[in-house]
């Protein structure tokens, strides 16, 4: 058990299942990744801390963290 748990790319948005191109949109959303070598916006869960979801900006080439904010903009603490 580690303090933080990784979910992945923060860009994920659930597509509209009613849209005419819903099938392609879901395949894209679930399986396709930008996978950048550089700045990556990603979701981490602070499980053994404040138990909030965080959006972290991290460089995948160096692991350097360039900032973090609450994933839910309404969280203030």
């Amino acid at each position: 058990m580690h303090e933080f748990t990784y979910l992945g790319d923060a860009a994920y948005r659930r597509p509209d299942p009613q849209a005419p191109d819903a099938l392609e949109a879901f395949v894209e959303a679930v399986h396709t990744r930008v996978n950048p070598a550089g700045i990556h916006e990603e979701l981490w869960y602070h499980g053994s801390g404040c138990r909030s979801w965080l959006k972290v900006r991290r460089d995948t080439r160096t692991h350097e963290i360039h900032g973090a904010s609450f994933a839910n903009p309404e969280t203030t603490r």
Partner: protein
Amino acid sequence: MRYSGFSVFMQALNRHKGWKPTWRDAAPKPSYDVIIIGGGGHGLATAHYLAKVHGITNVAVIEKGWIGSGNAGRNTTIIRSNYLLPGNEAFYELSMKLWEGLEQDVNYNAMVSQRGVLNLCHTDAQRDAFARRGNSMRLHGADAELLDPEGVRKLVPFLNFDDARFPIKGGLFQPRGGTARHDAVVWGYAHAASERGVDIVQNCEVTGFLREGGRVVGIETSRGTIRANKIGMAVAGNSGRVAEMAGFRLPIESHVLQAFVSEAIKPMIPTVVTYGAGHFYISQSDKGGLVFGGDIDGYNSYAQRGNLPTVEDVCEGGMSLMPAIGRVRLLRSWGGIMDMSMDGSPIIDHSPVDGLYVNSGWCYGGFKATPASGFCFAHLIATGRMHETATAYRLDRFATGHVIDEKGVGARPNLH
């Protein structure tokens, strides 16, 4: 140069002064029939089989660093064909057969050692799953033996058998599995391909693609433009970067996996052992070092180095399985960048761009696949059709629902 017992004897008389480089370090020509991007095991194996099986020798392997500087030279060298799913097992068994004839085929000692691979189980449910996997393996012509605790004890008596939480209930053993010396595999394929006329070009980074009428007709590199009608990419952890240059995206995330080697000790571990209750696997190299590893670190990375929480995790796994290794000192550790696919299985297919072929998605298990990957990728590039054992490795399977998810965890690369 041909290697034989006789040539070693003759060189010994001459104090080994007469050895020549085993493959030719070529300068790039303006054009080739086929370009392979990536001088890892898969790229070099592809070039070898293109030349040997399909007679296509006007081929260049383009490598940005030195050959084997990627995952081919960083892995823990385990080879096995102990998969469950039909799309996988036939392919990995083809690879195992190619390993068995590799050294004669490429005329190079790759130290292929069939010392066996033992997966341990710690619950009844796990043993049931092993029985099923073993049956699947045997149906595909591979070898598998389900061992009871006594059988495991005979093979590796020094394990923590009667642990209160994770007692060892048996194991699935593949006697034909084992290890191979990873850099000798790279040099062996390079040797054989080079002998047949393939150009191996190092320190040459691919930076873009040359296009005409929608298809790729060449590559831009740090050493100039090189043209070819067919281009194969076998760049493992850099698949996302190279696909981006060609204008498409893949169902791949790049993640770091670490490996560890201890100081050399006397022979202790006669086979490859994997822990079933934690993430830990271990073997002993011929030099005596214990070679071990565990899980990927679990976050996107191109850094070729991991972090300490995973080091702790791996060592805890080792201590819980094999307390005897607690006094052994760690010598080195390192990381490599895995091309983690969304279902944990590879892709060998046409890319969305005409003229460009994709070989990717090997996750942490592509070393054992090196021969079959090269064999099937060469077949695809030469004939335009997938090899019969690799038909499941389609790029469109993520859209059609034919994913090959050995672990059943879904599109979460950090859980594979």
